[in-house]
């Protein structure tokens, strides 16, 4: 990865629904660039024979039996909802969805 531009940050902020001012965008671009640069040093140590590692602990196949467990009641499920109606979460109209 090369450098992080202000536009990159603006794009990510839009995707992540984070409202950022021009100043914040500029500052974040600089800070992220430093982080990316630091992480880059890892690639210098790891050779081509080392695959990208997302899970450093050698653990696999942690499965659950297909047995029904506890659930929330309808009231509990809606407890933290800003708004609800008819036993369901109520959300503002979505205009650009599918």
């Amino acid at each position: 990865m090369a450098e992080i531009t202000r536009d990159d940050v603006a794009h990510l902020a839009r995707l992540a629904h984070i409202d950022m001012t021009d100043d914040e965008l500029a500052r974040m671009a600089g800070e992220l660039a430093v982080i990316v640069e630091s992480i880059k040093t890892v690639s210098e140590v790891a050779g081509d024979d080392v695959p990208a590692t997302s899970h450093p602990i050698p653990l696999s196949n942690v499965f659950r039996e297909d047995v029904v467990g506890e659930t929330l009641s309808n009231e509990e499920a809606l407890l933290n909802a800003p708004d609800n109606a008819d036993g369901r979460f109520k959300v503002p109209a979505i205009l650009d969805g599918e």
Partner: protein
Amino acid sequence: MSALTDEVLTFDEAMEKYDPVLGFEVHVELNTRTKMFSAAPNAFGDIPNTNVSPVDLGLPGVLPVVNGTAVESAIKIGLALNCSIAEKCYFARKNYFYPDTPKNFQTSQFEDPIAHDGYLDIELADGTVFRVEIERAHMEEDAGKLTHMGGAAGRIQGAEFSLVDYNRAGVPLIEIVTKPIEGAGARAPELAKAYVAAIREIVKNLGVSDARMERGNVRCDANVSLRPHGRETFGTRTETKNVNSLRAVEHAVRYEIQRHAAVLDSGTPILQETRHWHEDTRTTTSGRPKSDADDYRYFPEPDLVPVVTNDAWIEKLRAELPEPPAERRKRLQADWGYSDAEFRDVVNAGVMSSIEDTVTAGVSAAVARTWWMGEISRRAKLADVDPAEPGASPALIVELNALIESGKINDKLSRDVLDGVLAGEGTPAEVVEQRGLAVVSDDGPLLEAIDGALAAQPDVADKIRGGKVQAVGAIVGGVMKATRGQADAGRVRELILQRLGVEG
């Protein structure tokens, strides 16, 4: 809905100039007892927001745990689609904001699906076999269900707010993605339908999904693009979302081909976008253009460890696979001796398994077909239900057939008996008893009825006496009418001829 009606060419015009290229993403909901990453029940039609756990709602601090049965179902689907099964695969987060996903990401798989590089041979109605290459089948979770309120007829446009039920959020989903399907030509719409039908049949046969399209257990996104004959590169595609019946898949592909052809003919490029299917008008309308919102920023799910398979596990699952539907059909048709047309009708009527069970229970294949394709299908059609639904069972056919073979009832009476059984009046034997439907085998009442019929039609009686034996049908008809169908027509005929002193 869009006020604009898109221009379309006729299908034949489109085919004269262009080759269609198809691609499908079919989502299959598994019928596991619990969800993909939580122990909440996977059930349809329950009270909203009751089949939910903190994991499904994406509450802070929760940790998902993979449903082992769902992984095995995914591997079985992969094997049934002739796929390679990944030795190691990961889950990934697909990030997007939409209220159907309370976590703001869908847990899915990205670079390394559990199954990849398979194929499925699709048999079209005339027996042509078309191979569809499968790119991948991956595990993910379903989203919640949104209901748009305040707008017209539940549509998103004009809605004032939406209500969300998360019972479906987290239901295990397998997404099956094809490679681009080239060379189907004018048969593309038919192939589209046959492909989705084959997927539905396979997952149902595997027992891993209820496969009810009307409930959304199997959902299809259909990609269509056109290119001029002879061109190698693909045209721009559109993706028609949520085409959720077999008929709709066929219609949607046909419509998009016709629409693309008109757009291309006018010299305008196709816009890469999603399209919405409208069953009422059998058209699509513009959905959402491809945009940077489709930048899902996939990354490996840190809360779930990889799934690692081995040969022993895969072979154990392979050994559990049932006979593939296409092979089963070939075997049954050969066993039963049905013609291609007869067998196709049986399959299309959805009674193949019923006939199989009936034959297994001891009825001949020919008799079983007569029942299921005749009286039972007719009643089902009248009631607008599946033939298996009016309550007819292989056991019932066995009993009815036994009553006919023993001479206790005849074909005509057997229909009344069937009506009685379906109306809940009891077993066939009980219905015969209660409705008094047994064939009249005592000659006394028959002779009485015969004399009456002969007296009513003296001219016919004379003809028969004069040697026109075929005229006997009119008298038999009179007797059957007089006995309300309860006579054995063969016996009646014998008795009439005896009565008139004519040789049969």
